[in-house]
């Protein structure tokens, strides 16, 4: 079904999963309303290039669509490095969860 490979997390499908997701599969509704600290992005790029992403970004899955509201600097660092995927901790959420994040 094209679902991403599970590379960690719980095996029984209970609780959040750690998965590599293609960057373009993550919708980031707030991205254009906030600006990142470019020094932080640069530092993260250096560190990710050397040792990879240490802490996965949090992603919420609602009806098969992935939404990211945090990990803004880590996401931009991946974009700038041209990496195709990013390590995500995926939690299932509801429309209500989504609504809370858009307020």
């Amino acid at each position, binding site marked *: 079904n094209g679902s991403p490979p599970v590379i960690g997390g719980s095996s029984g499908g209970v609780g959040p999963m750690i998965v590599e997701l293609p960057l373009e599969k993550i919708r980031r*509704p*707030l991205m254009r*309303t*906030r600006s990142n600290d470019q020094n932080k992005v640069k530092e993260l790029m250096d560190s990710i290039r050397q040792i990879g992403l240490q*802490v996965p970004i*949090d992603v*919420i899955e609602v009806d098969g669509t992935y939404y*990211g*509201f*945090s*990990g*803004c600097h880590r996401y931009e660092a991946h974009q700038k490095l041209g990496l195709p995927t990013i390590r995500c901790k995926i939690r299932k959420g509801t429309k209500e969860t989504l*609504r*809370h*994040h*858009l*307020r």
Partner: protein
Amino acid sequence: KAQADDLPLVGNKAPDFEAEAVFDQEFIKVKLSDYIGKKYVILFFYPLDFTFVCPTEITAFSDRHSEFEKLNTEVLGVSVDSVFSHLAWVQTDRKSGGLGDLNYPLISDVTKSISKSFGVLIHDQGIALRGLFIIDKEGVIQHSTINNLGIGRSVDETMRTLQALQYIQENPDEVCPAGWKPGEKSMKPDPKLSKEYFSAI
């Protein structure tokens, strides 16, 4: 309460409150009217602790707290979460979705009375919109912005507005033109005198 319904908030006395807050990982009482005659106050509301939205504006206000201190201004953050939630949030470091220590208090509005009196409560969700108020030393609200839909607030813009406001209050015969920053020419609110401004720019 009647005041909130009848009068616009800006230009009028800020609704007073006394509430519990977390500061320096301890519980304190914050009373808004205690700042009257002493400090300007930036009071800002955010929806909830521990959401997965980058808390950039909350940490930015803390990172630049010394600049606000120089302007004799205290920053106060408010949400409807309990003080215990606030404490857990500042005790969680930024990497793990927490805030880390802040240089200003986070107020708990569990009764939602503060959010209600400042007109930012979303009634059917029980949380506050992203409202920000600048209150002067006399306790009068001089500025407000309210954002919907997760749009963050700019610390730079808040700083600029605060400085413009303080300039006007110290120089009551002048007004600040659009986009004014400290050190720039201001304008005299008089047709003849405003020529002074236009000829100088």
